């Protein structure tokens, strides 16, 4: 009877995308405890304790973290909207549109995020004058745009993949009901893609959030920048490990639930397809 059973193929090598797990949080927490312990050992009499110092700076760091979140929200929104059109452009019937979209996507998907960030910081002027009115462009706007570019390219790839995963018979059914291509795409194909796009999209958001700290390099007042300021104000090298692992814990606390939720959604949609 063996022949009737499905062949037991060896499981494919673990190619699952990298995910946050509880163990990462435990490691980070451990790092934080060790960092605090080391720092505490270096405290000289008269200095405030490590935990007191961290507590003192927490409101400042939290303000920076809000900035990280703001950048991530705006970059994700812009990147997603642009990415939808870039992804849809890749199935255009016009070869130049298709080619251009493909080139754009691959350029921004493969360029290092930091390089794109620098490009936006230095290529976009710090202010523009329109009709005699001078509008300043703050650094964080430019940083947000710089991060939105790779997001756009990654969303485009997710959208393209999802569109192509819908059976062509759906296109056929749509066209024999006299839908035009654009209607078929936006009313029939893309709504079916949303489910399968959600998990990779959320994954991308978690990656983006973690990448917002790159903005510190170009001088945006986000959490990382504030941490560096706090450290130089304290001028106690012993605090380094404690502070940085503290920042990591903040990001972990924010991104971990997203990662878990993504895993759950993936499991749900993997079964019901």
């Amino acid at each position: 009877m063996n022949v009737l059973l499905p062949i037991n193929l060896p499981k494919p090598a673990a190619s699952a995308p990298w995910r946050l797990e509880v163990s990462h949080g435990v490691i980070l927490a451990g790092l934080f405890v060790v960092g605090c312990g080391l720092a505490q050992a270096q405290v000289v009499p008269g200095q405030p304790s490590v935990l007191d110092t961290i507590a003192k700076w927490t409101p400042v760091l939290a303000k920076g973290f809000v900035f990280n979140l703001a950048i991530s929200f705006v970059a994700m929104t812009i990147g997603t909207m642009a990415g939808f059109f870039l992804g849809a452009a890749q199935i255009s019937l016009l070869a130049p549109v298709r080619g251009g979209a493909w080139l754009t996507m691959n350029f921004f998907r493969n360029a290092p995020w930091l390089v794109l960030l620098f490009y936006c910081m230095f290529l976009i002027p710090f202010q523009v004058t329109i009709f005699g009115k001078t509008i300043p462009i703050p650094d964080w706007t430019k940083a947000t745009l710089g991060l939105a570019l790779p997001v756009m390219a990654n969303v485009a790839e997710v959208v393209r993949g999802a569109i192509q995963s819908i059976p062509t018979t759906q296109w056929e059914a749509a066209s024999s009901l006299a839908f035009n291509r654009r209607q078929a795409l936006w009313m029939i194909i893309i709504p079916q893609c949303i489910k399968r796009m959600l998990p990779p999209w959320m994954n991308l958001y978690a990656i983006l959030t973690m990448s917002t700290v790159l903005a510190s390099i170009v001088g945006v007042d986000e959490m990382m920048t504030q941490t560096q300021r706090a450290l130089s104000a304290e001028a106690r090298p012993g605090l380094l490990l404690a502070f940085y692992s503290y920042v990591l814990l903040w990001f972990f606390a924010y991104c971990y639930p997203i990662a878990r939720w993504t895993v759950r959604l993936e499991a749900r949609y993997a079964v019901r397809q």
Partner: protein
Amino acid sequence: MTDSIDPIVEVRDVHLSFGTTEVLSGVSFDVRKGGVVCIIGPSGAGKSTLLRCINGLVPINQGTIRVARFQVNALKTDAEKIALRKEVSMVFQQYNLFPHKTALENVMMAPIHVLREDPKEVRERAVALMAKVGLQTKQDAYPGELSGGQQQRVAIARSLAMRPEVMLFDEVTAALDPETVKEVLNAIKELAREGMTCILVTHEMRFARELAHEVIFTDGGKIVESAPPAELFDHPKQERTKAFLSQVL
């Protein structure tokens, strides 16, 4: 104007190849308004492709196809093809319902967004069509919650909602279990009796015999023989037809 043109479908010497494979090599036939034509034949005879040529999904290499006032082979732009497809509806073997919409929404979508009709009127018509195919209780079900036969009947209602001149059925019962085949065939039967022009690709010989005005037997991209069902099934002239029928009957 449209209504006075007869025959409503005119296929003349159609040739089509995919690469070096010849799929259709000189197919000609007519369908009168209100006529029911069944196309039978072995797999790979080009039956489904022929249907796809009639509604312009697959462009032909040579020959002419006319449906009502549309010269299908001369349609170039999407807009022209869309105008044709408003008159010619197709029902598929795999139903191809839109899984993210309820049954009723599936029926309503095209009239509202393509024909730009009043949603209220379309809704009334869709409800009536759902009742007509015997699914008045399933309006709010999603395709995934329906059986194959039910899905196929929704697909028929969806096509009918466009109020087409011609309906094409591409092996619509081939994916169904024997019990549900009947419910789908009954829906088609009713349509045919109401005078809808139907072209069916089918393997249901009894159904073809009962319903068709003309049966066309195709093989190897050619029409081997075509005749009224009583003649073709009982007194086939060609050896190839006899051989095929002896296998399937």
